[in-house]
């Protein structure tokens, strides 16, 4: 990271830094004000508008992205800290599933995105990209055996509705589409488990 600001001059003048971030698989180099959040850098500078600005204070989850493979809130992340980071938004989930020629047909949707559509897990849709990315991160955490506040004992938890609701509690839905969101996350988890089982059988 190259300093473009004047050391010690931060009191009154904007301080700029250059960063390189991989966003949805594409390296993006940009000069940013140190005050800029990752959310604003994505939306306002890079035109990546799937992460939404709901509350901008870490209370709603609409801005959720993956950074380094983990779900985080882009509204509480300074872009300057993301130099060299790998960021994936809801748009990038689709690209990940794209065919080698880069075409994004409907069948290329991520299993979580497909489950949200199948289960009608949205109403207005504003929180949906954040919900979807959060669900991808939550399912990865579940696969790693991470417990939640409702997990009992030390054994591997079952992904029942209470577990999904707790793990997704950082994503608010003003339309209250929660009932179908929980179903969608369970369906996506089942699809992923079935996929793994099939792969194991083929490999075995």
């Amino acid at each position: 990271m190259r300093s473009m600001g004047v050391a010690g001059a931060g009191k009154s003048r904007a301080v700029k830094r250059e960063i390189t971030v991989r966003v949805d698989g594409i390296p993006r180099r940009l000069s940013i004000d140190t005050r800029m959040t990752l959310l604003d850098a994505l939306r306002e500078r890079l035109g990546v508008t799937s992460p939404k600005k709901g509350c901008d204070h870490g209370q709603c989850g609409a801005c959720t992205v993956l950074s380094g493979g983990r779900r985080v809130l882009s509204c509480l992340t300074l872009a300057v800290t993301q130099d060299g980071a790998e960021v994936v938004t809801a748009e990038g989930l689709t690209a990940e599933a794209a065919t080698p020629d880069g075409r994004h047909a409907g069948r290329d949707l991520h299993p979580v995105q497909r489950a949200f559509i199948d289960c009608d897990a949205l109403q207005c849709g504003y929180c949906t990209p954040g919900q979807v990315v959060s669900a991808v991160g939550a399912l990865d955490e579940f696969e790693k055996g991470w417990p939640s506040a409702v997990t009992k004992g030390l054994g591997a938890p079952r992904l029942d509705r209470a577990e999904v609701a707790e793990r997704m509690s950082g994503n608010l839905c003003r339309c209250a589409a929660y009932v179908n969101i929980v179903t969608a996350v369970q369906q996506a988890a089942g699809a992923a488990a079935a996929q793994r089982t099939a792969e194991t059988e083929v490999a075995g």
Partner: protein
Amino acid sequence: MKPFDYRSPADAATAVRIVGGDPGAVFLGGGTNLVDHLKLGVVEPGLVVGVAGLLPAEVEELGGGALRIGAGVNNSELAADPRVREWFPVLSQALLSGASGQLRNMASVGGNPLQRTRCVYFQDVTTPCNKRKPGSGCSVVGGWTRHHAILGASEHCIAVHPSDMAVALAALEARARVLGPDGERTIPFVDLHRLPGDAPDRDTVLEHGELITAIDLPAQPIARRSAYRKVRDRASYAFALVSVAAALDVADGVIVDARVAFGGVAHAPWRAYRAEEALRGAPASDRSYRAAADAELADARPAEGLDGGNAFKIPLLRRTLAATLRDLVGEDAR
């Protein structure tokens, strides 16, 4: 937001030297609280020093069941650590009861205890607040007090500390390892946070430029039977109205030893020594649990408020302590 310079030095010692030498500089860890404060204007640093990648990010075994938790370990990883879950369940449960999955992935062990109160007046720069601007007054008087303190408050501030993790650490004899401009020191966790007194702007005993590098947990067999119980206005993703961290050693229906700390009721995580004293040697019964709560809450001073005040926290905490201890004793039956 006021402009600020940003630096990310090569190591923690350099970061400490930079911040220690600049009164307008602050450390940035996971950013979950500081970045919000930058937006709100609660803090206006001239220099932000990123330390997220500079601090140890491992949980190290010190032998005999003791752990050293690097300050760079995030809250999710610590909660999921098998040793923490088995040896110190109260800590794992406290972490998981706080914030959301996204925030726990961002939040660091070193930063979590240093998060600041969520008092709405502290966070609203248009209102007087002795914590944000010493001497300006306290807007809670005659205001909203539902989320404020009943123990250890002063006329200058009745804010509460918001961390759940810190309540568990206060019950667990934890020690904070701190690196400062003058070298290293170790602070018993129960002494890290201050009561407001006449200087509510100071949350902790840390000096400017001091950085938590690790949290040490000594081996404690009692902690294997421990739990965290949090009561809040919604089932998840909310701060505590009251919370209880407790560990119990019970034999033949008698409490041999106990560790108890309360959250949501004071400017600091509240180690309930008087409750522990009342529990030692007492029969494991609801009557004992209530008596222990009453011993600790004898000096409780609820605040009146536009929202009906916070006197409800006294019976709520009494019941929450009793429920927590009852469940811990009941673990025998599992």
